[in-house]
């Protein structure tokens, strides 16, 4: 092990707590509680080591055993995602749960990797940098699989739109996502924007990234081959977010404890863009054996995970780490969350080639040490050992909790409290209700946000917001591509977390198939309150069970994701919010289906049936009501609807399709008309009669497994035959009319598109400028 010349001087700055010293001073008081460890967890560390940990070891265990890194509360439930799968579901899975991101085979030798992650707490503290570094982190996960990142998406949830703090968060978070993602050259192709007071002190900033690679390019995070060299490259290590991993994710924000506010991480998108290109060149030149990004828990995580996933041993010299802040202690260096860093394993023969690529891209690097076959992770400081651990005990054998859980006592009264307010009756009232709905914070036009994101860069975006899914071409010669959608409905999940998770999956699945793609795989970001609250833990367990059951029924596996707990302030948790991302594949993105109609005279069909399901709906939300049971979910019907939509797209039967979800048919028809500013004549009488519901209920109910499509006249017979043959309800509800400039609900009312557009587009600019 070489020691850098300045290391001897460096070491004098600290009284280094070596392993030898630790063994000799068993009685030393250690700040394990301040670092977020519980007493029994600390005792377990002592038991594992057979002595007290050194300060550096304590830092490593505390960050790696935090909720954020160890999944200690969620692990016992998450294993269902691995258990409730069939061989058929795994057919397209090249890399499953457990790596940085899952990898899915999409055919023709291509693979896609995608994952959604949260950056909720940091974004509340410093909205711009929190959101920016959230994008940066998920993109590095994608790079570390060996893929070129090709798109990002961002599901966002804020408090009430008119709360004084909401504007601060919206401005900071949206410009942070744009500022980072736009500078990386990654098209932003969709996301969500939800306002609900339950997210007031706990905004949800989830970021999804997708990357593309050839099968042979898959890279894994493991350190194999004793004698291979370990290198850290990218940005220098500073004091960013020290303790963020454990402190942020283990404690709720509490006004009485301001001292818990952490140092925030600052993102450098330019450094990350260079890092992307530099890594892709490393992969192309085959000079790295294994690679790991540095995110939460920084070097602690990278060294322990690489070592335990490989041959089991690693020996590094920590004074070789290039520092931005020379005053950092060894423990702080191990915990630092400085952004835009990667760690790789390189054979000695490839070291020169590695250095040449670093020089080309002007990226700093330092050789830290080497892979060993000792089964120990040994970290030295100027030649003295400060960490000597079995890396598996740090990375994989952390505490596992069977947290107590209990269905909240209030759940029965919540379910019994069905929406029974007076319903608008008569043409004028229903028309006003549509305008009010389409101007509401959750249903209004989102372009104030999405226009701040680049959707064109890379030239492969075939569909983006406001369409149902984002679509990216993968192969420019064949048109092979993917569609992705993310969805969640916190209100549904609050009413019934098991069904709510299935509903989120159903909607995301439906969005992808509405765009014309065949759903293939799932990623999830599970945002919940405190796991120490048995009610929240019950919500979490029910959600995971629902999602795992739903995935099995639809035949799409969960490939990876993230859990964010402790999203609560003052004892009040957010709604359970399982964000589900579904990835689908197209053999040719040229046949993607947009969400609006354009061709005069095309027939408009409603697929599926409508029941009286207003509980948890956007309409009930407008009236301040939340109670009852969420819409029924029938995944077999969703699957069938999906097949019909994909077939209709493949065979050129439909020119537009839009799923019916939040806001019901009223929102679906409004959005389809506004997409290209083309009106339609709509007649709903027959469907009302068929389904036994009144006009208002047909328009505002949020019954599932429904979609609206526009069918060319010449294809109508074929389309109807297809639906009939599969026994799927369908009804002709109107005709596209390029002349009238309105949605003409015949024999009821006329809704001019100008009026609808003004209501729909005015909301966000009015609140945010």
């Amino acid at each position, binding site marked *: 092990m070489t020691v850098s010349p300045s290391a001897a001087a460096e070491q004098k700055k600290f009284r280094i707590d070596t392993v030898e010293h630790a063994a000799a001073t068993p009685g030393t008081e250690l700040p394990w509680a301040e670092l977020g460890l519980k007493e029994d967890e600390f005792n377990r560390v002592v038991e594992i080591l057979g002595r007290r940990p050194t300060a550096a070891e304590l830092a490593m265990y505390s960050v790696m055993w935090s909720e954020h890194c160890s999944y200690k509360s969620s692990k016992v439930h998450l294993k269902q995602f691995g258990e409730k799968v069939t061989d058929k579901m795994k057919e397209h899975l090249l890399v499953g749960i457990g790596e940085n991101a899952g990898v899915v085979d999409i055919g023709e030798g291509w693979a896609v990797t995608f994952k959604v992650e949260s950056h909720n707490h940091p974004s509340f503290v410093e909205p711009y940098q929190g959101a920016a570094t959230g994008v940066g982190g998920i993109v590095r996960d994608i790079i570390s699989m060996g893929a*070129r990142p090709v798109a990002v998406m961002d599901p966002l949830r804020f408090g009430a739109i008119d709360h004084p703090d909401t504007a601060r968060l919206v401005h900071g978070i949206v410009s942070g996502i*744009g500022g980072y993602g*736009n*500078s990386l050259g990654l098209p932003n192709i969709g996301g969500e924007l939800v306002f609900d007071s339950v997210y007031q002190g706990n905004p949800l900033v989830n970021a999804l990234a997708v990357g593309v690679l050839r099968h042979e390019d898959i890279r894994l995070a493991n350190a194999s081959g004793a004698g291979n060299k370990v290198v850290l490259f990218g940005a220098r290590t500073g004091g960013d977010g020290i303790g963020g991993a454990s402190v942020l994710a283990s404690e709720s924000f509490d006004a009485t404890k301001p001292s818990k506010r952490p140092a925030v991480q600052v993102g450098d998108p*330019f450094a990350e863009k260079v890092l992307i290109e530099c890594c892709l*060149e490393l992969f192309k030149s085959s000079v790295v054996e294994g690679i790991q990004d540095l995110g939460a828990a920084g070097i602690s995580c990278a060294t322990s995970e690489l070592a335990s996933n490989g041959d089991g041993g690693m020996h590094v010299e920590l004074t070789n780490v290039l520092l931005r802040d020379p005053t950092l202690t060894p423990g702080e260096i191990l915990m630092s969350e400085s952004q835009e860093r990667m760690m790789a394993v390189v054979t000695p023969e490839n070291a020169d080639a590695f250095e040449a690529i670093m020089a080309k891209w*002007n990226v700093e690097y330092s050789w830290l040490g080497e892979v060993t076959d000792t089964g120990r992770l040994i970290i030295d400081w100027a030649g003295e050992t400060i960490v000597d651990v079995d890396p598996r005990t740090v990375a994989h054998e952390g505490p596992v909790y069977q947290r107590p859980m209990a269905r909240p006592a209030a759940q029965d009264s919540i379910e019994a409290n069905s929406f029974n307010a007076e319903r608008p009756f008569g043409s004028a009232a229903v028309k006003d209700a549509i305008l009010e709905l389409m101007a509401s914070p959750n249903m209004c036009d989102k372009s104030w946000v999405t226009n701040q*994101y680049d959707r064109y860069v*890379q030239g492969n975006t075939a569909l983006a917001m406001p369409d149902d899914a984002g679509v990216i071409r993968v192969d420019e*010669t064949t048109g092979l591509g993917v569609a992705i959608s993310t969805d969640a409905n916190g209100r549904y999940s609050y009413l019934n977390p098991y069904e709510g998770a299935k509903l989120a999956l159903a909607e995301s699945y439906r969005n992808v198939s509405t765009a014309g793609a065949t759903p293939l795989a799932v990623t999830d970001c599970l945002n919940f309150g405190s796991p120490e609250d048995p009610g929240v833990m019950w919500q979490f367990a029910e959600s995971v069970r629902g999602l795992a059951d739903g995935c099995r029924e639809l035949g799409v596996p969960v490939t990876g994701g993230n859990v964010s707990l402790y999203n609560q302030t003052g004892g009040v948790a957010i709604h359970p919010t399982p964000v589900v991302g579904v990835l689908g594949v197209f053999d040719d993105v040229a046949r993607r289906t947009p969400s609006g109609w354009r061709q005069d005279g095309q027939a408009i069909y409603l697929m599926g049936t409508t029941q009286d399901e207003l509980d948890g709906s956007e309409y009930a939300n407008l009236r301040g009501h939340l109670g009852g049971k969420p819409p029924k979910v029938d995944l077999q019907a969703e699957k069938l609807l999906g097949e019909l939509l994909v077939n209709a797209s493949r065979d050129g039967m439909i020119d537009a399709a839009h799923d019916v979800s939040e806001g019901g048919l009223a929102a679906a028809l409004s959005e389809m008309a506004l997409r290209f500013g083309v009106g339609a004549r709509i007649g709903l009488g027959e469907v009302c009669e068929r389904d036994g519901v009144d006009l208002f209920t047909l328009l505002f109910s949020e019954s599932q497994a429904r979609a609206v499509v526009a069918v060319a006249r010449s294809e109508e017979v074929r389309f109807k035959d297809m639906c009939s043959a599969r026994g799927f309800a369908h009804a002709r509800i109107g005709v596209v009319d390029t002349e009238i400039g309105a949605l003409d609900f015949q024999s009821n009312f006329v809704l001019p598109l100008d009026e609808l557009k003004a209501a729909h587009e005015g909301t966000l600019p009015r609140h945010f400028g």
Partner: protein
Amino acid sequence: MSTPLIGDFSVAPENDALRAVRIGVITFPGTLDDRDAARAVTIAGGTAVGLWHAEANLQSVDAVIIPGGFSYGDYLRAGAIARFAPLMEKVVDAAAGGMPVLGICNGFQILTEAHLLPGSMVKNNHLKFSCADQLLRVENNSTAWTSAYEQGAGMVVPLKNQDGQYVADEKTLDELEGEGRVVFRYDGDNPNGSRRGIAGITNAAGNVVGLMPHPEHAVEPGFGPDSSAYGEVGLGYGTDGLRIFSSVLNSLVAGGKS
């Protein structure tokens, strides 16, 4: 290109003379639209050649495109650091010799920092990054990069930037107007506060052109804007930007190249 491409875009040459024209596309650290610009050249029928900022070698190209992005993060000023790249000296010399040079977005900013074009770009007057389809007017069709357009023709191409507001002193603006060097002007509402609605300009010789909007994102049916100045088009079928690339290829071929 020096960076790995996802899916090589290879179109069989339809016209050998066009395909023989070599258009360089420069990559700086932080450049984003380089592969898009190269794709546009290929679709227009020419041959794209990747140029690396640190190598002072133009590789015998016939024209140069400086694409969009955030070179060096735009941290000092957009384009301020990139203009000092070794390759830029060669570009400045070649431009003086008449070689067609096009700067798009960040490339336009680099051309102004390199004093190949007058004026500068500051933050949009609405202070936000904005990505939207934009209607432009071609006000000068005699440059190397606009000869395939009718004078006064409209074109719809994406406009996406944070620092897109073109500014210059009144004297410079009057000169640009007087000499017909305003090449593109925003049609309708001014999207970013640019002086006199200027979207793109040229040098006196007409070989160096810079513009803020992105013609390279309106060249391929299905992946461009939803509208066109030439009538209704299908979803993403706006390809009004393609003639920028055809213009330079045709003028180089007509000028005796190959």
